[in-house]
């Protein structure tokens, strides 16, 4: 996620360098370079994930899940510190313009144009993922492989390729998350991924592991409850809210709200 956000920053810088006009679109605080950078970053992050999979996880695939988990913690430290090495720990900015929230006449809420953009992109990604998993051949193969790896193999599905796709898509989505968070907060830091880790776990547990729609719903619930909690307790504890939700969830319904397994 952090990687994606920073790759977007590189791309953004590069594209600005290439002289692509950075005039903001209408009310948004960014223009074409940001959009292009978004896609390039997604692509590059996906690619990076595939490379890491080929170098590392491929060889560890036969070992237990714990080894994989340790390895992935190692990878996260590795990536985070590469970013930190290049940019340092201080926040980096995509752009510095400050935007003023506008009131939406009918709903009576104030919202920034950038936030509207984020909501639309997030919705598009969700719809896109749904479409991909339900309608495309690779998406279906992915669900098939998650159901039954061996049967997928005897059906002639190249499961290695499916795993690669899974990595690429997972990483790209994480990158998208990072970039959107960067647009919302105006800055990105190397440990933004780490900060989000707990809420993400919480969302997945809440939705039931192995259920993408549950995870989306879980994400909404965790996100909202984190924000709502700030009305009652100090903002500093926003991440802790996710943890409390995990604990409550484990106590009452360990398989998650929509869990099937």
């Amino acid at each position, binding site marked *: 996620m952090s990687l994606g956000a920073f790759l977007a920053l590189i791309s953004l810088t590069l594209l600005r360098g290439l002289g692509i006009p950075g005039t903001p679109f209408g009310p948004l605080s960014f223009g074409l370079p940001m959009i292009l950078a978004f896609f390039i970053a997604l692509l590059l992050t996906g690619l990076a994930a595939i490379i890491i999979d080929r170098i*590392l996880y491929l*060889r*560890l695939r036969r*070992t237990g*899940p*714990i*080894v994989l*988990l*340790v*390895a992935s*913690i*190692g*990878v996260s*430290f*590795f990536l*985070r*510190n*590469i970013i*930190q*090495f290049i940019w*340092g*720990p201080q926040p980096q900015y995509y752009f510095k313009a400050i935007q003023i929230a506008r009131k939406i006449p009918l709903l009576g809420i104030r919202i920034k144009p950038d936030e509207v953009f984020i909501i639309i992109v997030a919705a598009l990604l969700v719809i896109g993922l749904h479409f991909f998993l339900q309608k495309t051949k690779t998406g279906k193969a992915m669900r098939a492989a998650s159901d039954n790896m061996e049967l997928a193999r005897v059906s002639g599905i190249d499961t290695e390729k499916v795993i690669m796709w899974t990595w690429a898509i997972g990483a790209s989505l994480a990158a998208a998350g990072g970039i959107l968070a960067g647009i919302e907060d105006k800055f990105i830091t190397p440990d933004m991924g*780490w900060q989000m*880790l*707990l809420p993400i*776990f919480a969302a997945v*547990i809440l939705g039931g*592991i192995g259920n993408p729609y549950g995870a989306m719903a879980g994400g909404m619930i965790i996100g909202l409850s984190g924000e709502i909690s700030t009305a009652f307790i*100090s903002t*500093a*504890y926003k*991440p*802790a809210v*996710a*943890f409390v939700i*995990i*604990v409550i969830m*484990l*106590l009452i319904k*360990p398989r998650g709200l929509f869990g099937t397994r």
Partner: protein
Amino acid sequence: MDTLVGILNYLVFFAITAGIYAVLCLGLNIQFGYTGLFNIGIAGFYAVGAYTSALLSGPPPGPLDWRTVGGFQLPWVVGLLGAIIASGIIAFFIGLLTLRLKEDYLAIATIGIAEVIRLILKNEGWLSNTVWGIKHIPSPLHQPIEAGVSSFLKGHPQLSPWLIHFISNAYNWFYLALVLVILGLLYWVSERSIRSPWGRVLRTIREDEAIAAVSGKNVFSFKLQSFVLGAMVMGMAGSLYAHYAKFIDASSFEPLYGTFLIWVMLIAGGSGNSKGAILGAFLIWGIWAGTDFLTGYLALSATRVASLRVIAIAILLELVLLLRPQGLLGEEKAVSKMMGK
């Protein structure tokens, strides 16, 4: 000669820190190496140990402090016991909650509790004095030893500078001895228990819970025992750290120092092997501390060097996982030592 003493003094300092890490590794080894419990929130137990000990044996809050509790100035041993108990209690509740479920949940719960503890330490001024931390934590027997050293030096003014330099460091030697004694004790306890029928059940659970269950073992209870014991050892390490560093704040218990390094140490040294845990701690801390000099050579800023070091350690971890997954010292055939030959 003076440089030599300087190096020696540095080595003592190095060995104390490595020894504290070795204690943490032994704790993790009980949980993961023996029982297969995946704790990625070591930092949480470490921090609870450190703060508990500091609040029990430390000074009362100063005039400029936010902190309003603690500072009972109890003897160091009480602080140490308090640290052990506090970490154990927290582990008990986490274990109660998650050890019946799939292993991923323990991982998530431990990382969660570690983060929550860190947030509390950062934000709850009445308890932790926030980012200003807790200062002036007394080291055990510090006064008498220092007094002894200074009166000895006063009595022998003719000593050569390097000898004075050496003797002034006596307290660190003492603390090193203390850490090593505790480490040795833990090593003995941990070796003895893994080679006992108790340890055999733990390893059975790690290998196959179903077999443990058909043999009438209460899998949950044994997992809980292992998890709590491991956490208590981590709490002990926290206390050792607090009383040595004399100052603690939340930044000492970040995931990097508090959890990640310890995992690398255990994996590199050899999970399931107490000797491996200790070797891993000294070795990895050696590499870690050794790379400190890079700053001078590479003419890079301190933060960049820090990142570079983490990158190197991360690569090292992946290499160990790929090339020698059992670690430098693999697990030994631990046939019960309780039956003689």
